[in-house]
C-alpha cells in the first residue's frame, strides 16, 4: 500500500510521520544525529518500516512521489550552520560609506540593564565587505554613477581571498537595479566561476540591512544546502527510494529540492513552521474552526503559532542567530520551557523554571543519566501525571525516587514545603510561563484567543494543556493523537508553495497603475513558471497576492491579502485600489484596534504560488459509536495515585490507553490517557471526548482560574 512520509529533523528527535492511504497516520522517533543528519532520518524510517513489518527497501519503495511525496527539510542544517558560524565564505560589494550596515543592523534587541554580553559580530567580516562608489536615491534616480574601477578592484581582492560567492548590496537597488545588474556583468566577465547573488533578487525589500543580510545568508548557504540535498537523495535512492525528496520552507510549504537549492535562505527554520499546518488541519477537520492557537511543547522549547481565518500567520521579524533577514516566515514564538526545563529557587525565595534546560543529556533527574537538578518532567512524575514505566512508548524507564530527591533537595527543603507542594508549584510555574508566552504572541498580533481553538502538540503538552486553556480563557482544546510529532505531520498535509516579491512604492492617493501593474505582472509570471517547472496541474494552482504598506510616517508595514481585488490578468484598476485601501484600514483596525482616515503607502508586493495538496482528504471520518461515557473499567489499563490541587492530595485515578478509545468515547476526569508519544492529564471536572478524526477534544473549559 502506498504511503506518504515527512521527516522533521528536530533538536533532540528526528520524527517520521507516515500516512497510509487507509488514512492511518503515525509518528516514529529516532534520536537526531548532528554532523550527519541523514543517519537520524534513516533510523526514523527504519523504525517505521519495522512497524509495518517491511524491509527498509520495501517501505521506501512504497512511499508515494506524487503531491510532494517524500518531504524533509533543511531547517536544522541551515539554522545550525548560521548559529555556529559554519557557513560558506563569501564576499560583499556594497555602497561606499555603508560597510557597517552588517554591524549596526537595526540595533539588536537587548535588555537595557544587561551589560554582561558581547555585541554580535557582523554576518560577513568587514574586511570582506568592500566599498564601491555609487549611489541611487529613494526614487531610483542616480545620484552617483557606478565606479566600475571600484568594482574591478573589489573582485580582484575577493578573488585573492578565494570566496565561494560575491554578494552585491547597494542602497536602493529595489528602486533601480541597474548598478547591481551591471556589477554582476562585470563579475561574470572578470571571474566567471564565482557565485553571484544580488540583493535586489533574494529579498527585494526596502530596508537595507534586511535585504543585504538576506542576500548574504543566501549566498553563504548555497553550497551547503545543495550538498545536503544531493547526498540525502542519493543515500535514500541506494536504500530503495524511487522518488525525489522535497524540502519544507519557512512559509509553511514544500518545494522541490532543486527549487530550494536556488534559494536556500527559505529553508531556515522550516521545522516549527509545520506545526501550524497540522494544527490548522485538525482544527478545521475536527471542530470546523478556522481560528486556532497551535502549541508545540517538547523537551527544551515551547513554540506557539496562530491560524487566523484559515491563514497561518506570518511575520518578517524572525531572528536567525544574530540576524533578522526579514523574509516572511510562519510566525512562531518560542520560549525555553519544556520537559527538561530546570526548576530553581531564587534568592528572594521564589520558584523559577527555566530558561536553563537539562536537555536530553544529562536530562531530568528521573532519567538516571547523571542529571541531579529537578525539571518539569520530574515534577510531572512526582505528581503522578507521568507513568514511570510507559515513557516514549515504554522505551524508557523513569525513576520517581530520583525526582523526589532532586525536588526535595533543591526546592522543597529550601522553602520548607512538602515535595508534592514543590512539584505542584513547579508545574504551576511552567504553566504560567507558557500562558505568558501565548499571550505574548496573541496580544502582539491583536488576537483575542478566547474565541480560538487550542491545538496542543508536542510530547509534553498533554500534561499541561488544560490549565493553559483555562489561563487563556479558551473554551475548546484539541489534542491530536499524533501530538508527539506535530511538525512532521504538518509536512504531510502541506501544499507546494513558493513566494516571490518585489518592492514598488505607490500611494493610494495618486496611484501609479502602470508601474505597479508591471510589477504584479512580473510576479504573476514567476508564479506561473513555478507551476510549470513543478508540473502542478491547472486545477491545483492557486495564487495569493499580498500588499505590504503603512500610513504616512509609519515605519512598520502591515500585510494585506489583495487577491480578491486584482482581475484575471493581475491588474489593479481605479476601483480596486479603493478596495485595497479599505482592506488595509480593516486589517489595521483588527491588528491595532484603530484605523486612520489617511491614504496608504504601498511598499511591497508579494505573490504566493500554491500547488494544492489533497492528502488531508484521504483521512476518513471514524465510525461513530454514539456518545458513550466510559464507566466500565474494561477500557482502563489500570490506575495510580495522582495529585490534584482540587483535593490537595493524591487520589486513585483511572488510566486509559489511547488504543482502546474510539470516536464517541467520553472520559470523565480525573483521568489519564496514555498515547505512545504523549500523555494527557484530564483534570477533575473536565471530560475528554474522542473526535471523528480520532483525536481528543475538551470543551466547556472554565475561565480564569489558572491555578487548577
Amino acid at each position, binding site marked *: 500500500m502506498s504511503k506518504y512520509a515527512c521527516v522533521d529533523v528536530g533538536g533532540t528527535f528526528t520524527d517520521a510521520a507516515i500516512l497510509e492511504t487507509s488514512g492511518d497516520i503515525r509518528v516514529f522517533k529516532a534520536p537526531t544525529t548532528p554532523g550527519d543528519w541523514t543517519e537520524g532520518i534513516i533510523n526514523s524510517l527504519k523504525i517505521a518500516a519495522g512497524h509495518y513489518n517491511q524491509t527498509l527497501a520495501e517501505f521506501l519503495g512504497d512511499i508515494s512521489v506524487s503531491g510532494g511525496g517524500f518531504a524533509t527539510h533543511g531547517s536544522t542544517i541551515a539554522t545550525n550552520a548560521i548559529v555556529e558560524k559554519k557557513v560558506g565564505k563569501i564576499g560583499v560589494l556594497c555602497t561606499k560609506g555603508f560597510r557597517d550596515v552588517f554591524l549596526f543592523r537595526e540595533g539588536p534587541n*537587548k535588555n537595557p540593564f544587561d551589560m554582561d554580553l558581547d555585541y554580535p559580530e557582523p554576518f560577513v567580516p568587514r574586511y570582506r565587505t568592500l566599498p564601491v562608489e555609487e549611489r541611487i536615491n529613494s526614487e531610483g534616480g542616480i545620484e552617483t554613477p557606478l565606479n566600475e574601477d571600484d568594482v574591478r578592484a573589489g573582485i580582484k581582492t575577493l578573488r585573492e581571498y578565494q570566496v565561494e560567492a560575491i554578494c552585491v548590496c547597494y542602497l536602493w537597488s529595489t528602486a533601480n537595479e541597474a548598478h547591481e545588474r551591471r556589477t554582476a556583468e562585470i563579475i561574470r566577465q572578470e571571474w566567471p566561476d564565482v557565485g553571484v547573488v544580488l540583493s535586489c533578487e533574494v529579498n527585494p525589500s*526596502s530596508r537595507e540591512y534586511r535585504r543585504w543580510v538576506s542576500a548574504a545568508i543566501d549566498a553563504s548557504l548555497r553550497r551547503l544546502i545543495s550538498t545536503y540535498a544531493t547526498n540525502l537523495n542519493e543515500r535514500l535512492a541506494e536504500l530503495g527510494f524511487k522518488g525525489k525528496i522535497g524540502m519544507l520552507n519557512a512559509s509553511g510549504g514544500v518545494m522541490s529540492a532543486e527549487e530550494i537549492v536556488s534559494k536556500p535562505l527559505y529553508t531556515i527554520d522550516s521545522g516549527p513552521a509545520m506545526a501550524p499546518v497540522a494544527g490548522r488541519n485538525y482544527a478545521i477537520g475536527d471542530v470546523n474552526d478556522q481560528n486556532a492557537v497551535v502549541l508545540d511543547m517538547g523537551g527544551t522549547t515551547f513554540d506557539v503559532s496562530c491560524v487566523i481565518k484559515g491563514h497561518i500567520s506570518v511575520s518578517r521579524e524572525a531572528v536567525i542567530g544574530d540576524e533578522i533577514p526579514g523574509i516572511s516566515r510562519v510566525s512562531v514564538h518560542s520560549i525555553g520551557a519544556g520537559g527538561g526545563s530546570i526548576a530553581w529557587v531564587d534568592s528572594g525565595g*521564589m520558584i523559577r523554571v527555566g530558561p536553563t534546560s537539562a536537555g536530553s543529556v544529562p536530562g531530568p533527574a528521573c532519567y538516571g543519566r547523571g542529571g541531579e537538578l529537578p525539571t518539569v518532567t520530574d515534577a510531572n512524575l512526582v505528581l503522578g501525571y507521568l507513568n514511570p514505566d510507559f515513557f516514549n512508548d515504554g522505551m524508557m524507564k523513569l525513576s520517581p525516587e530520583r525526582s523526589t530527591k532532586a525536588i526535595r533537595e533543591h526546592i522543597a527543603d529550601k522553602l520548607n514545603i512538602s515535595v508534592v507542594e514543590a512539584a505542584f508549584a513547579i508545574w504551576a510555574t511552567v504553566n504560567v510561563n507558557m500562558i505568558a508566552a501565548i499571550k505574548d504572541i496573541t496580544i502582539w498580533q491583536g488576537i483575542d484567543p478566547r474565541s480560538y481553538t487550542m491545538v496542543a502538540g508536542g510530547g509534553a503538552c498533554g500534561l499541561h494543556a488544560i490549565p493553559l486553556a483555562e489561563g487563556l480563557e479558551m473554551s475548546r482544546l484539541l489534542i491530536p493523537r499524533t501530538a508527539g510529532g506535530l511538525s512532521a505531520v504538518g509536512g504531510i498535509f502541506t501544499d507546494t508553495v513558493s513566494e516571490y516579491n518585489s518592492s514598488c512604492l505607490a500611494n493610494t492617493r495618486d496611484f501609479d497603475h502602470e508601474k505597479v501593474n508591471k510589477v504584479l505582472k512580473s510576479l504573476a509570471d514567476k508564479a506561473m513558471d513555478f507551476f510549470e517547472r513543478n508540473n502542478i496541474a491547472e486545477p491545483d494552482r492557486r495564487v495569493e497576492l499580498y500588499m505590504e504598506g503603512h500610513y504616512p510616517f509609519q515605519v512598520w508595514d502591515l500585510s494585506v491579502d489583495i487577491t480578491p481585488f486584482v482581475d484575471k490578468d493581475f491588474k489593479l484598476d481605479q476601483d480596486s485600489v479603493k478596495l485595497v485601501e479599505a482592506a488595509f484600514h480593516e486589517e489595521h483596525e483588527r491588528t491595532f484596534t484603530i484605523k486612520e482616515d489617511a491614504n496608504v503607502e504601498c511598499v511591497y508586493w508579494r505573490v504566493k504560488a500554491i500547488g494544492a495538496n489533497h492528502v488531508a482528504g484521504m483521512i476518513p471520518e471514524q465510525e461513530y459509536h454514539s456518545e458513550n461515557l466510559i464507566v466500565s473499567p474494561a477500557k482502563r489499563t489500570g490506575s495510580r495515585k495522582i495529585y490534584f490541587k482540587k483535593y490537595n492530595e493524591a487520589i486513585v485515578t483511572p488510566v486509559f490507553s489511547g488504543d482502546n478509545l474510539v470516536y464517541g468515547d467520553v472520559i470523565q476526569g480525573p483521568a489519564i490517557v496514555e498515547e505512545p508519544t504523549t500523555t494527557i492529564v484530564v483534570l477533575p471536572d473536565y471530560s475528554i471526548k474522542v473526535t471523528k478524526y480520532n483525536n481528543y477534544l475538551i470543551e466547556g473549559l472554565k475561565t480564569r482560574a489558572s491555578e487548577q
Partner: protein
Amino acid sequence: MAKIESYLMSVISSRLYSIGLEMTNTLMRTARSQLMSVCHDLSTAICDRNGEVLSLAESIPVHCANMGLTVKPCFEHPEGIKEGDMFLNNSPYRGNTHHADYTYIAPVFFGGELLFFAVTKGHQADIGNSIPSTYHSNAHDLYEEGAIDWPCIKIQKEYKDVPDIIAIAKARIRVPEVWYGDHLACVGSARTGERRLIELCEDYGAELLKDFSDAYQEYGSKRIQEEIRKFPEGHWEYDIKSDAIEGMVDEINIHIGCDIKPSEGKIIIDLRDNRDSVPCGLNMCEATVRGSAITGILNRLPSDVPGNEGAMNHIEVLMREGCVVGKSKMPYSSSLATTNLADRLISGVQALMNQVTSERGMAEGGAVQCPAVSVISGKDWRKGYQPYVNQIFLGMTGGPGVNGHDGWITYQYPCTGGALNWNSVEVLEQQYPVLIVEEEMLPDSVGAGAFDSAPSCKFVMTPRGEAMTCAYSCDGIDNPPKGAVGGLDGHRAAAWKYSLPEGEGSRADLPPFAQPEIKVGEAIVSESSSGGGYGDPKKRDPQLVCRRVREGWITPEFAERVYGVAIDMSGEEYKVIEDKTAELRSGR
C-alpha cells in the same frame, strides 16, 4: 512571603507581567508619536494601593524606579481619588520625568476599595514648546521652554474626558489630531490595565491580593539585599562633567557620594553637594535623578532583580531642592531632564562602582546627543511641500567597555541602555527628503582598554530639494567619557558641516547645542563620542586586537602604540607577532 502559597507567587506575578505587556502593546500599536510606536520610548507600571511600583514591564532605564513618584501626587488631589478618574501628570516639578513624557494614571477600585494603579508613560510627538522639538536645551526657563505643565490633574472623570482640559491642550499643541490620538492611546493602555486588574481581583479577592502585594514587595526587597550584601562597606566619591552651553552655562560638574551598608542592605547615593539649577533646559528633576542614580547601580547588578519599590527602596538617593541634579524648582526648565545630565549621572554612578567591585565593571558610557539623533524639520517637496518634524535615531554608538566585554555598539544613550531601535537609511530617505552620505565607524575611535568601548560613528546627511533644520544637544566635545581601571578615555564628539561640492576641506564647526539650518548642497557631520575603555589596554587579548585591525576598526599603528601589539599583515589572515608584542608590552 509567609501568607502566600509558593505557586501563587508565580501565578499572580506572571499575571501582572502579562497585564503590563498588554498595556505596553496597546500603547505602542495605537500611538501616533514615532518615539512611542517605533523607538519604544514608553513605559507601563502597576502600582499597589500605596502608589508604590509593584510590577514594571520592560521599560527604559530613565523611567525605572520613579513611576511611584509620578503617582504619589494623586493622593494630594483636592477632590480625592475616585473610581473612573484618569490622572495626567507631566510635571517634572511634581514627580514626572520631563514635560514630553505624559504619564496617565488610572486608579483601580474593587468593591469600592482602591487596590492598584495602572500607569502608562510615553514620549509625545509635540507638547507645545516654543520651538518644534520636545527638547529645548537653550530655554532659559519654563516660560521660554513653552510646554504646558499638567501638575497631576484629572483629565477624565467617571471614565469620560474633562472637555475643558482637552480643549486647552488642543488649542496649544502644534498637531492637535496627533496629540488627541496619543491621548486616546494612553487612556486605552491605562484602562486596559485597570480592566485586567479588576479581573484579577475578581479571581483572587482583595484580601489575598493585598497580601500578595506586600509579599511581592518583600520578595523584591530580599532579592536586592542579597546582592547588596556582596559589596564591601564604605564611602566612595566620583565626579563627572558635562560640556558648557556657550554663552549660557559653564561646564556642569556632578559630584556623587556613595555609601554602601551591606549589613543594612542599603546603598545611599548623595547628590546634594552640587551646584544650583541653571538657566537652560538641562536641569534634572526628582524623578530622573532617582531613576538615573538607581540605573547606575542596577547596571552593576544581575538584570533580573525585580523593578518594584520593595527592591528599589534599598537604594536611597539624597538630593536637594533647586539643585541642577536634584528636585527642580519652577521656573527652571527641565526640558532635557531625561537625557544629557541624566546620561552623565548614570555613567558617573556606574563608574563610581568600579571602586567598590570589579564585578560587571563598566566605564562611562558615550555622551549624547550628537546630530545623528537630531530632531529634523523642514518641508518635503516630494509630497507637496508637506512639513515634517521628527527625531531620528542613527549614527550614535556609545557602549562603554565592560569587564569581560567590549562596548555594545548600538547602545545609543546610557538612559536607554541599547533598548531603542536604530533607523534604516532607506526607510528614512523614503520618509524625509534627505540623503545619507555616510554612516560608518571612525577608525581608532574606541576608548581603548582590556575591553574597548564601541567605536564612534561618523554620520553625514544632506537635505534634498529644501533646507532642513537639525536640532541637537551634543555633549562630549570638551569632556569625552572617561575610561576605568586603567582604560583610556573615549573619543570626543563633533558637530560640523561642509559644502558638498568643495568637499570635507570646507569644514565649518557647528555649536554643540544648536538648531542650525543645513542648506541644499551642504552636509551636516556628526561624530558620536565613544564610551571609556575598561582595564589596561596593554592587557587586552592580542588576538582580539589583531581581529580589530583585520576588520579595520583600528590601524596597526594604533595597535602598537596603544595596546603594544604588533601585527603581521602579509596574508589574508592577520597574525600577532608574538616576540615583538612581548617586547612592546614589557618595555612600557
